[in-house]
């Protein structure tokens, strides 16, 4: 029996200063083994030292299908860098569901305040709950520490192009606001693709920034026919050169839906500018897959072991053991939870419960889990 356990991702406690650390340790000793958090949170859900939590203090409709939330966090929030994303968890029907959003505010804004702008998917699980906070603040959220490498370097490049489409506007909006706060003097262009003018979150603010800083290039490109705007039509290299002639010497930060991202990356590859292009990945949900395939034809990646195998249709535990890994086999039948592993991505079908596990960084019992498509396990 080993002492290794799989722990759910918990945020690190921010370095407490001396007295806080001592009182915290004493409080934890008096409440051992559960810890003081389990008591203090009963008085106020944000009063926890070991987890980042926040409360929606304001929520407003941004465009027809996006909503902007202002979240006040607790002391555990470590601050973020413009462009990073945060896991936001909310309890829906007893289950904590997590989605990743990029704070849209300047990184120099109020220390414990975050702004999220989210697209509402009417058939979704999380976004309708978040959207319901409009006019009804107070929802408590759990947050992960900020993550991601889609950030601006320091010192800031002289020439910057921030390119976005749809709900990809949030990380680059954060970058723009940050640069404006810093009084950035270099050349800066903000190019955003949307269907039409009504579809642009922060449109008034963007227009106000343009008026205050005529040296910046704020370009709103509308793709719907007849929508007008500064740069009509879909993305092309020529249109980009027309709107931002100096983009060759700039670092470009791109965040947008796959068609836009693909078009931009293709163009930058052709003109040899890929080393100056920084892209933020969009994680897409997995669509319906027929559940009756014997072997799904995917690949199983074992992250920490650094190996991959082709899926042969048997359980993840069997395939891990055949690959020479120790899957911590317990009962082998899905009741003892000894073999639980974190599934970073992909879909795993539980043959006992019949459920499919789709979410990123989700724990699964590998002795009764069968991969559907590509799966990445932490093992």
């Amino acid at each position, binding site marked *: *029996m080993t*002492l290794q*356990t*799989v*722990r*759910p991702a*918990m945020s690190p406690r921010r370095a407490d200063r001396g007295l806080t650390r001592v009182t915290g340790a004493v409080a934890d*000793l*008096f409440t*051992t*083994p*559960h810890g003081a958090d*389990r*008591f203090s949170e*009963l008085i106020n859900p944000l009063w926890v030292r070991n*987890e980042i939590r926040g409360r929606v203090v304001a929520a407003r409709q941004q465009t027809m299908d996006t909503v902007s939330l202002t979240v006040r966090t607790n002391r555990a929030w470590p601050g973020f860098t413009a462009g990073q994303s945060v896991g936001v*968890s909310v*309890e829906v*029907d*007893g*289950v*904590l*569901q*997590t989605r990743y959003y990029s704070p849209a505010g300047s990184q120099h804004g109020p220390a414990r305040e975050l702004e999220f702008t989210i697209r509402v998917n009417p058939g979704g699980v999380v976004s309708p709950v978040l959207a319901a906070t409009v006019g009804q603040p107070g929802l408590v959220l759990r947050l992960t520490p900020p993550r991601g490498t889609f950030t601006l370097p320091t010192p800031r490049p002289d020439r910057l192009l921030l390119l976005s489409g749809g709900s990809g506007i949030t990380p680059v909006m954060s970058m723009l606001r940050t640069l404006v706060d810093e009084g950035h003097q270099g050349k800066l262009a903000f190019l955003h693709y949307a269907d039409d003018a009504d579809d642009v979150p922060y449109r008034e603010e963007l227009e106000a920034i343009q008026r205050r800083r005529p040296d910046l290039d704020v370009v709103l490109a509308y793709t719907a026919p007849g929508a007008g705007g500064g740069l009509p039509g879909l993305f092309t290299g020529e249109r980009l050169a027309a709107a931002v002639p100096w983009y060759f010497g700039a670092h470009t930060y791109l965040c947008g839906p796959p068609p836009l991202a693909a078009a931009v990356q293709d163009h930058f590859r052709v003109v040899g500018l890929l080393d100056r292009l920084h892209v933020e990945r969009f994680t897409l949900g997995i669509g319906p897959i027929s559940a009756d395939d014997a072997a799904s034809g995917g690949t199983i990646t074992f992250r920490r072991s650094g190996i991959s195998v082709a899926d042969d249709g048997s359980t993840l535990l069997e395939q891990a053991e055949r690959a020479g890994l120790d899957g911590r086999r*317990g*009962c082998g*039948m*899905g*009741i*003892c*939870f*000894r073999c*639980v592993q974190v599934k970073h991505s992909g879909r795993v079908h539980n043959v*006992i*419960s*019949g*459920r499919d596990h789709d979410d990123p960084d*989700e*724990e699964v019992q590998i002795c009764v889990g069968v991969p559907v498509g590509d799966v990445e396990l932490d093992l």
Partner: protein
Amino acid sequence: MTDTVIPPAPPLIPGDTLPAGLYTLRHDLDPDQVEALGRELDDLNRRQRQSLGAADADYIRRVMRAQKALAIGGRALFYVGFFPPAWIAGVLALGAAKIIDNMEIGHNVMHGQYDWMRDPAVNSQTFEWDNVCPAEQWRYTHNVVHHTNTNILRKDGDLGYGSFRVTPRQRWRPYYLGNLAYAAILGTLFEWGVAMHGLDLPGRIAGRRTREQNRPLVRQFRRKAARQVLKDYVLFPVLTGPLFLSTLAGNAAANVVRNVWAFLVIACGHFPDGSVVFDHNQIGQENRGMWYVRQIVTSTNIRGGRLIHLMTGNLSLHIEHHLFPDLPARRYLAVSHEVQDICRRYGIPYKTGPMYRQVGSVLKHLARLSLPTR
């Protein structure tokens, strides 16, 4: 059509007091019936799991809140512990809080019953309970060993915990004359017994585990036990100033209350007269149906009201727990009707009875086993 073989019924040995039907049970069922039984129970489990939601999450949170209130109330009463009724009330309240923490909350959370909530506070891999035994070690001996090898002699360490005799299949030795005493001592100090069980003390004594192998476990146990001892026998007594000794005694008594109650409940689950214990060579490759049958015949229920179910952590519904260990325990009462119906249709005895009768049966059984079997 399955090709699994149901092992032949073992011969009755002297001292076995089982009704004839139980031991010939698996002859009465042919492989197809066993497989059908497996499918019915799998289906029941799946239906229950698909309906898990806010009600279950709210329930465990309510229980956790109530448990904390009881613990705070109990510890507060020791501030007036010089007044005997307050001291007794403190012992009962704190004892009840520890019982609920260990059984309805701890045992069930650590079975993974609430892992689907994805809340780290009720996750089986990170939950720690108010008990000197480290959660991780208990989870191994309980979830992996006891639930997989339920009532298989020499594999299920819970059969007597290596200290007393629970089946005539354990060969009698003069040591066993003290059977009831050993059980009583273990019951009084049960949390320490569970910790020793987690360290596989019987295995160490028998030489199956070396000191080197046990070193990290011992380290883990020492740390857990130190914090528990510090909390119950130093910190809170000191806090009550001149009532130090009274609070210390009260906390110790509360731990004993939890120990004895938990031990009795667990003993009722597997040790009453008539419990089936298998030899390890009787169990070959089990399919799900066979595993289910073994879980039913080796478990016994306690009949009672909602308070009994809460205070036993729903281990009163032991058969249901052994069938569906990772189903939130509050569901066991609801599924018990269907389980009883399935047992009736397949002719499997479903053993239940009021608590006093089950405890009495355990004591009678252990007493009889302290003597050499005829």
